[in-house]
């Protein structure tokens, strides 16, 4: 059997795998064949010996499929359920823990407690995501929650002015130690995210992590503008709804399904666009009086669009398989 036929037959047996997983398995096997072909010790009858040594592609495909039974629905649940209901759960927790307040996040304690509870919850989800990565090779949940956690901590430090000596949190030794602690946590998470992304070397995961970073940049820019006295009539996002569901919530359920369950890379990109677009679109409408804010809010959508275009034109996914 020719090498290309072997790889093609193996590929057809890996139907349950994502494009990236398939690509990596095929690359490893293609590399094995290449090593045998250039090995001088392999002998003169190397093609015949190689065929025997490779075994059947059907066998290899079946064995690999029996090892990997990715429970993608677990990853979907890990992302969608907490993402949709986290704020309600945390508000309920705060309301149950402290004397009832109709707007728990409006009082000082609520603000500080709420954001810290959010960080703890995100840490739990990131750890669960890491377990899924280790056991099932599913990385989306881990990256999603670890990225979200980094951004929550960053937003918290930004709003509490942790990096300014005048901050009320930096007036005592414990407060300064806290600021140093959070800064180190931020650096640590960023280093870990970089390591994981570097190992994966998949532009879709880079984009997945980049989207909330730029969304947060937009949020902080709006926050800063409000502090400067902008938006005299208050800042209001449009309430776009589809059958009583907010557009943002629907998009959350949809993008994760497209990204996690589909085996097609183009559907993944479309899923990332669904993930990136709703919040920026809402903010583009609300911040239309400030062009620089509109520019900032366009970044998440542009990143997905350009990365997709770049991969489609410059690096078609097929080239990843046989490189």
């Amino acid at each position, binding site marked *: 059997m020719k090498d290309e036929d072997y790889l093609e037959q193996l590929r057809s047996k890996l139907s349950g795998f994502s494009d990236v997983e398939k690509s*990596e398995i095929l690359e490893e096997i293609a590399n094995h064949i290449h090593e045998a072909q250039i090995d001088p010790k392999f002998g003169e009858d190397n093609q015949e010996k190689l065929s025997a040594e490779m075994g059947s592609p059907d066998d290899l495909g079946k064995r690999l499929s*029996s090892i990997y039974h990715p429970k993608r629905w677990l990853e979907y649940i890990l992302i969608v359920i907490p993402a949709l209901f986290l704020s309600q759960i945390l508000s309920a927790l705060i309301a149950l823990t402290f004397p009832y307040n109709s707007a728990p996040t409006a009082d000082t304690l609520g603000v500080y407690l709420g954001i810290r509870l959010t960080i703890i919850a995100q840490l739990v989800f990131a750890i669960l995501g890491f377990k899924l990565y280790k056991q099932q090779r599913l990385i989306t949940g881990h990256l999603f929650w670890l990225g979200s956690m980094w951004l929550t901590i960053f937003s918290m430090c930004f709003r509490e002015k942790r990096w300014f000596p005048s901050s009320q949190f930096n007036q005592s030794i414990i407060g300064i130690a806290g600021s140093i602690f959070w800064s180190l946590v931020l650096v640590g998470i960023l280093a870990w995210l970089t390591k994981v992304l570097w*190992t994966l070397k998949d532009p879709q995961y880079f984009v997945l992590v980049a989207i909330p970073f730029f969304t947060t940049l937009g949020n902080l820019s709006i926050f800063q503008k409000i502090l400067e006295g902008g938006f005299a009539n208050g800042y209001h996002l449009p309430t776009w709804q589809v059958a009583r569901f907010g557009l943002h919530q629907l998009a959350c359920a949809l993008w994760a399904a497209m990204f996690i369950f589909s085996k097609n890379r183009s559907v993944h990109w479309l899923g990332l666009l669904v993930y990136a677009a709703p919040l920026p679109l809402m903010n583009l409408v609300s911040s239309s009086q400030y062009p620089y804010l509109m520019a900032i809010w366009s970044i998440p959508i542009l990143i997905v669009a350009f990365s997709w275009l770049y991969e489609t034109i410059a690096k078609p996914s097929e080239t990843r398989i046989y490189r």
Partner: protein
Amino acid sequence: MTNLQQLRKGSTPLLILSILNEGPQHGYGIMRAMEQRSEGYFSMTAALLYPALHQMELDGLVSAEWQNTIGNRRKKIYSITPKGKEYLMKDNLEWHRFFDYLFGIIDQQGIKRAQ
């Protein structure tokens, strides 16, 4: 599957870990090392080796890393993990004990028959 084949299959992780214990290797390198050290007795097809390696990676016994090589190619290099080393040590002892007792019985029977 014959008993001997089952025995061989059961020894696959031990064989792979023993080779990786001497240094990181890619799949092809592991296959060649195994063949050389056993003078061809332990020859394994790719259809057996790679699923075994992937399973061991999932179990945390080995770790894998892609390394760039000449000609825009990448090699997946496997290394033994601390958990793998621990497993190797325990499994090594178990197999030695197994064969000690096995041959202890077989040899005694052989001696009796000879007498």
